[in-house]
C-alpha cells in the first residue's frame, strides 16, 4: 500500500506533466509554471538536508573509524561549517543578518557631495560644500575627521570609472561611503573589504581557482589521451584519428595557410559526416529517453521505491 501510494502520486504528476504541454490555455500554463518554478523547487530544496546529512555522516564515520586519510575529513567539515556560517550570516550580496564582510562592521554611510579630481593618475577625494554648488568655486574641504583620504580599492575603482565615463577630470559626485571601525587602529574609516572575509572573497579566492584549475587539467589529460589512445589499431580508431587530426590541423593558422583546401575539408567534415552522426545518435537517444521515461511512469522500473515494507 505504501509503495502503491508513491506510485500513484508519481503517475498523477506524470499525467499532468505530459498533458500540460499540449494545452494552450494560459491558466494551465500559469499553474504549470508555479508547479515547476516554485512548488517543486521548494520540495527539492529539502533534499539538500539529506545530502548534507550524508556528507557529514561520511566524514564523521571516517574520523571515527580512523579510516585511511581520516585527518583530511576535518578540513572538509571545517570548511563546510565556516563557509556556511560566513555565507548564511553574511549573505550573498550583503542581505544577511550580519554585515556582508565578516570581520568589519558597517556603522553607517557617509553621504554627501564628493569632489574628485585626477592628478597625475592619483585619485583624491574631497568633500564639496553643497551650498556653493557652482562649478568654478567649489570649496575644497577635507573629509570629516576619522575618514581617511585613502580609499578602498572598490571606491577607487568606482571613482576612476566615473572619471573615465564622464570624460572629465573634474567631477562633482554624490556618493555614499560605508564607514566602519578599523580593527587595526580602532578609528572610523571608509569601509575596506580587505579586512574581512565575505562569501564573495571565498568564491573568487577558493572556488573559482580550484574549479578552473580542475578544468584546465583537461588540457593535460587530453594530450595524454591523444598520445596513448590515438593509434591506428583498427579501422574505427583510424577513422577517428584521421578526422580529429584534420579538424585539429584546420584550426592552426600556420598550417591552413600552407595547405590549400584543408580549411574547407575540415568544414566538410563538420558539416556532413559530423552532422549525420550527431543526428542519428540524437534520434536514437530521443527514443531511448522516451522508453526510459515510460518505463518509470508505467511502473515497470520501480527500484526507486527502495526496499523495506510494502
Amino acid at each position, binding site marked *: 500500500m505504501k509503495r502503491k501510494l508513491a506510485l500513484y502520486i508519481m503517475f498523477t504528476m506524470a499525467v499532468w506533466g505530459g498533458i500540460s504541454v499540449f494545452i494552450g490555455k494560459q491558466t494551465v500554463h500559469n499553474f504549470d509554471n508555479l508547479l515547476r518554478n516554485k512548488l517543486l523547487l521548494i520540495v527539492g530544496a529539502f533534499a539538500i538536508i*539529506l545530502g548534507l546529512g550524508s*556528507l557529514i*555522516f561520511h566524514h564523521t564515520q571516517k574520523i571515527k573509524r580512523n579510516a585511511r586519510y581520516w585527518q583530511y575529513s576535518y578540513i572538509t567539515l571545517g570548511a563546510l561549517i565556516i563557509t556556511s556560517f560566513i555565507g548564511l550570516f553574511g549573505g550573498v550580496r550583503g542581505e544577511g543578518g550580519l554585515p556582508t564582510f565578516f570581520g568589519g562592521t558597517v556603522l553607517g554611510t557617509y553621504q554627501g557631495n564628493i569632489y574628485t579630481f585626477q592628478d597625475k593618475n592619483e585619485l583624491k577625494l574631497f568633500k564639496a560644500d553643497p551650498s556653493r554648488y557652482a562649478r568654478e568655486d567649489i570649496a575644497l574641504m577635507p573629509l570629516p575627521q576619522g575618514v581617511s583620504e585613502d580609499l578602498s580599492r572598490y571606491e577607487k575603482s568606482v571613482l576612476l570609472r566615473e572619471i573615465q565615463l564622464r570624460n572629465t577630470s573634474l567631477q562633482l559626485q554624490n556618493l555614499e561611503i560605508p564607514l566602519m571601525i578599523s580593527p587595526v587602529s580602532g578609528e572610523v574609516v571608509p569601509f575596506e573589504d580587505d579586512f574581512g572575509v565575505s562569501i564573495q572573497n571565498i568564491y573568487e579566492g577558493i572556488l573559482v581557482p580550484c574549479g578552473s584549475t*580542475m578544468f584546465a587539467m583537461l588540457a593535460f589529460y587530453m594530450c595524454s589521451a591523444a598520445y596513448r589512445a590515438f593509434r591506428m589499431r583498427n579501422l574505427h580508431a583510424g577513422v577517428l584519428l584521421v578526422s580529429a587530426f584534420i579538424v585539429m590541423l584546420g584550426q592552426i593558422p600556420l598550417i591552413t595557410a600552407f595547405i590549400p583546401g584543408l580549411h574547407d575539408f575540415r568544414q566538410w567534415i563538420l558539416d556532413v559526416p559530423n552532422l549525420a552522426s550527431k543526428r542519428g545518435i540524437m534520434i536514437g537517444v530521443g527514443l531511448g529517453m522516451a522508453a526510459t521515461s515510460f518505463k518509470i511512469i508505467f511502473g515497470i522500473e520501480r527500484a526507486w521505491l527502495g526496499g523495506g515494507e510494502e
Partner: protein
Amino acid sequence: MKRFQGTNRNKVKLKVQIPPVRSVLGLLTLLFAVSWAQAQDMDTLPAGMTGSGMDAVEVSERPEVVLNSPEITNVMDVPSDDGGMILINWKSPEGDTKPDHYILELKGPDGLWQIATRTVLTAYQVTGLPNFVPFSFRVKAVYGNEFTVSDISEEVVAKDHWVKLGKLPVFIAIFLFVVILIAFLHAARSGVDLFVRRISGLTEVENAIGRATEMGKPVLYVPGSSSIEDVATLAALNILGEVARRTVHHDVKIICPNRDPIVYTIAREIVKETYASEGRPDAFDPDSVFFMVPDQFAYAAGVDGIMVREKPATIFLMGMFWAESLIMAETGASTGAVQIAGTDAVAQLPFFITACDYTLIGEELYAASAYLSREPLLLATLKSQDYGKLIFMIIMAVFTFLALLFGLDVVSLIQVR
C-alpha cells in the same frame, strides 16, 4: 538469474529477400540523379526558397506612376495556439510598381500606432500580444521615399485555446510509441521470446565485475553529474540496480558518490532495495552510497581522489557528463581499472571512447538496464525503442522519396509549431 544466452535463442525471422549492396547503391544514385535532373528543370524556386531581405524586390524609380495602396485581406486570431498571436494577410497593391517592402503597424487600446514588423512578404504573424485585448492593423507599402497606407482593419483579439494543434505531430508520435510499447509489453507477458543482439559494451559488465571479485577490490559507480531532470540520470540509476545486484552476488564493495541530493536519495534506495531483494539486507553499508558535493569540478576532484586512493578494480561512468568526463576517465585509466562508460552527451563520447575500455554510445545507455536484467517487461521497452526507430527510419526514407520524385510538401506533415 536469467542469463544472456546469445545466438542459440529464438530469432526474429527476417524473411525479406535481402538485395545485394550494389543494387542499393545503384538505387540511391538513381534517385539522386533523377531528382537532381528534375530540380534543374524547374524554372521557379519552390516556396520558402525566395530570396529574403530587401534586395529581393527591385526598386524602380518611376514617380509619375500612381501608387496604389495594399489591402488587408484577412486578420485573425491564430487558431489552436497558446495565445498572444494574430495572423494578418494582405494583398500587394495593384499596378506595375511593386513596393520595396511593407510596414505592418498595430494599434492597441492606448490608441498609438506601433510598428509590428518590416517585411517583403504579404503575411505576418504578430506574437507576444496580450490576450483578449483588441488590436487593429494597417499596412504601409513603401516605395523608396514614399508610401501608401491600407485601410485600418477591424479589431481582433488574440485568444488562448485548449488544444495546441501545432503540437499534433508530437502527440501522434508519442501515441504511436505507446501503442508499440503496449504491444510489446503484452507480448512479453504472454511469453513471446524477445530477441536482442549482443551489445559488446554490456556483455563486458559481467566480466568486469568478475574481475573486481578476483582482485578483492571495490567497484566505483558514478551515476553522472546531472540531476534527476536528465533522463540519462534515470538510465544510470536503472543500471546501478543491475550492477549492485552483481556486486551482492560476488560479495564486492560498491562505492557510489553523488552530485545531486535527489539523485543520491534515489540511488541509496536502489542499492538498499537490491541488497534486500537479493536476501542480504545486512550487507548493505549505508556509507557506500553517499552525497559528495553539488559543484561540478569539486565533484570531479573528489571522484579523482577516490579513484587514486581506493584503487577500484572497475569503474562505471554512466549518465550525463560535461567537461569533467575526461578528468575522471583519464584518472581512472591511470589507476589501471577496467572502465565502462555510457552517456548520451555526444560532446563527451569521444573522450570516453579514447580513455575507457568499453563505451555505451547514446541509446545503448538506455538499452543497458533491460539488456542486463533480461527481464521480459524491460526487454519490451527496449524493443519498442528499437521499432520506434525503425518507423522513423522508414518515414525519413519514404518522405524523402515522395518529396524528391513527386515534389510533395511532406515536411509540413511532421513540422512542430
